[in-house]
């Protein structure tokens, strides 16, 4: 009896998959009918995902391989090319995650990164700074190429005693405000920037707030800066 039922259900499901729902709807036995419908739904469901899953798998496989080989090779390639063109600029031979440069030829390197057809980094996505301790400040640049759809990160460290980095504001215009913010927060001076003023804090503010040794000034134009209303907590 059970085997018969199974056979029957299988037949019905096949018909249902082909678009013919009549035989299922015509079954008198309620239990059997619901079983058949459930089997049909199951069959439909399992039929679809297989396709999409395969598809997704293919896509992700492809992109992951491409991305990996591209980005890994990209950073290494850039490192080698920089070493060739601007000897002594590469600080660290290990370019797996980012490219560490000295500030000396940064303006020329940046121009080359943008104009070199095989790289064409036409967009500076982010520029920021960080105080990494041990008297070192670091500027970081995230570059992206819209043409080749690849990206890389450049890092430039300078000593806190002489924090000067060439400005790339004339290469990527967006760097104008990015560099002003980095200047505002960390006091990294971008030489040859055409308008290097503080961007968020008032022009006459003292100190660089994102440095680790920052001390808040006591007063600003006669207004006391640190909290002063005691006994509020």
């Amino acid at each position, binding site marked *: 009896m059970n085997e018969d039922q199974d056979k029957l259900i299988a037949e019905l499901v096949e018909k249902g998959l082909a678009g013919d729902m009549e035989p299922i709807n015509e079954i008198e036995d309620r239990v059997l009918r619901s079983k058949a419908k459930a089997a049909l739904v199951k069959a439909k469901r399992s039929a679809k995902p297989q396709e999409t899953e395969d598809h997704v798998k293919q896509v992700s496989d492809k992109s992951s391989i491409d991305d990996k080989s591209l980005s890994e090779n990209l950073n290494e390639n850039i490192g080698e090319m920089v070493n060739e063109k601007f000897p002594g600029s590469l600080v660290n031979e290990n370019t797996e995650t980012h490219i560490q440069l000295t500030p000396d030829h940064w303006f020329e390197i940046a121009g080359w990164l943008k104009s070199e057809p095989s790289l064409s980094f036409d967009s500076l996505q982010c520029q920021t700074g960080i105080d990494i301790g041990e008297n070192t400040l670091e500027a970081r640049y995230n570059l992206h190429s819209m043409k080749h759809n690849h990206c890389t990160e450049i890092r430039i460290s300078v000593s806190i005693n002489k924090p000067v980095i060439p400005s790339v504001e004339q290469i990527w215009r967006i760097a104008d405000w990015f560099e002003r913010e980095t200047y505002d927060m960390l006091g990294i001076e971008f030489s040859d920037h055409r308008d290097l003023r503080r961007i968020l*804090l*008032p022009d006459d*503010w003292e100190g660089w*707030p994102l440095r680790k040794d*920052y001390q*808040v000034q006591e007063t*600003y*134009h006669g*207004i*006391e*800066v*640190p*909290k*002063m*209303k005691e006994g*509020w907590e």
Partner: protein
Amino acid sequence: MGILEHRFQDNVIVEKLDKLLSWSRSTSPWFFQFGTACCAIEMMAAAASRHDLMRIGMIPRSSPRQADVMIVAGTVTMKMALRVKKLYEQMADPKYVVAMGSCATSGGPYWQHGYHVLKGVDIVIPVDVYVPGCPPRPEALIEGLLKLQEQILNERPLTRKMA
């Protein structure tokens, strides 16, 4: 009103000029429309159709010269503090200040570590009403404004103050 009462026709009301002045002031305190941070969003909501500040006579003005009330809505940074003070000084007397939100009353979330935030707008300008909250609901702001209206209503601008 002693001797003057019931001496005129029924449609004449006798009142002290003093009281009339403060009454008319209290029912139309136009506020200065500017916001310094997130609290301003609630101020806008309070002025918009659902809460409708206009029904209590408050109209936003965009010039300090035309405003009676300054609602300091939001964080006041050190950079802004000087400008807030200047704007306050540009308002014509009589002028009132409402400090809206915990930032304007005390520095709010930036109380402890906000190196560039003014710890309460009352450090630079005198405040009449404080509205706590982060941000206060429009209802809270309206309550604060009604309190301010009460205060204005009880003022006697023509009476000489006793020392």
